[in-house]
Structure formats: structure tokens, C-alpha cells
């Protein structure tokens, strides 16, 4: 599996996990999901693909807690 493929699949995993359940979770559960998602994204190597980096940036915005 190439690094690009791995990164693509990993991001999809995190996106799906977050979006599928976040609407039905309480604050504590959602925070756990958010923190865990960010930790995985933080561990990903920086991609040379600009489109992928933009997708990642947009998803990180989605993960931000609402003030």
C-alpha cells in the first residue's frame, strides 16, 4: 500500500467514524471522538498532494469544538 493510499484510507476512516455517530453522541462522547480523531490526523505525515492537504484542513475545521 503506497503512503498516499494509506493516507487517503486513514482520512476516510476518521471522517466516516466522526460523521456517522457524532449526531447521536452526547458532549463527552463527542469530545472523546474529536480528540481521538485529531490525534490520528496529527500522526499522519504531511502529504505532497495539495488536494489531500486541503481536504484534511477542511475536516480539521469540522472537528473543531463549537465555542
Amino acid at each position, binding site marked *: 500500500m503506497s503512503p498516499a493510499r494509506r493516507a487517503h484510507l*486513514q482520512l*476516510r*476512516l476518521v471522517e466516516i467514524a*466522526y460523521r456517522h*455517530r457524532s449526531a447521536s453522541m452526547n458532549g463527552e462522547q463527542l469530545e472523546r*471522538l474529536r480528540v481521538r480523531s485529531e490525534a*490520528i490526523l496529527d500522526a499522519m505525515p504531511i502529504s505532497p498532494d495539495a488536494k489531500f492537504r486541503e481536504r484534511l484542513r477542511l475536516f480539521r475545521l469540522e472537528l473543531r469544538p463549537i465555542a
Partner: protein
Amino acid sequence: MARVTVINDSPEFLRLMRDILDDLGHRMTGFQAVETSIEDVVASQPQLLIVDLRLQDKPQEISGWELIILARSHRGLQNVPIILCTADVWELKKRATDLEQIAGVHVITKPFELDDMCSLVQTLLAEPGTRLEGIS
């Protein structure tokens, strides 16, 4: 190449798991929870099951937990290793004691590291007693 059956209520997750398992060289059968009966799962002849803990949207639909209990009660699935996926760590904690009583269930919490899932899949499929297609 192994046969892996995945039961999940998210079509996106099923598509993703198919991509992952294809990359690992395995054949996946996917079931969306609302359509699934235990006999459907048996008919897919899985060498590995991947089940989500929270499946049902409605009380009359089968839950992931119920599916695991049924699998362990069915002669065709008794010895098939199961990966239990969930984002609901609270439900998992409630089930912790029950889980200890059931053999061959491996838990992975969502969101998971891709490498962790791939490693777990390959480890479980490499265990003695798992006969893979194409390997004599």
C-alpha cells in the same frame, strides 16, 4: 485470500472496508444491518467477521451485540474470529464483563489507526485453523 464478512449500518464504512480488505488481498462480503440475518452471515462462509457494536436504528433491528451472541451459538460461526468495532466506548465498558466470557472477540475502537486494523485482520487470519483459499 480469505473471506471476510463485515456487518455495519454505514454504507460508507462498508465501502471503505472493502477497499482496505481488497488491498490486503481478501474477499469481503458486506451486510447493512437492517438486511442481515444470521443465516445470511453463515451463508457468506466467513473466516473473519467484522461487526459494529451499534447497528440498530430501530428496536426491532438486530444489534451488533445480538449478532455476536447468535454467531457464537451457531455451529457454522462458533470458531470464526470476530473483530468488534465501535466508537461507543461507554457501551463497550458496559459490556466488558460479558465480552470476557465470549471467546475469539477482538475489540477495536473507532476511529482506529488503519495499520492497527490491517495488523489485526492479518494476525487473526494467520491463526491455526484458518484455511485460506489458494493455500494448500
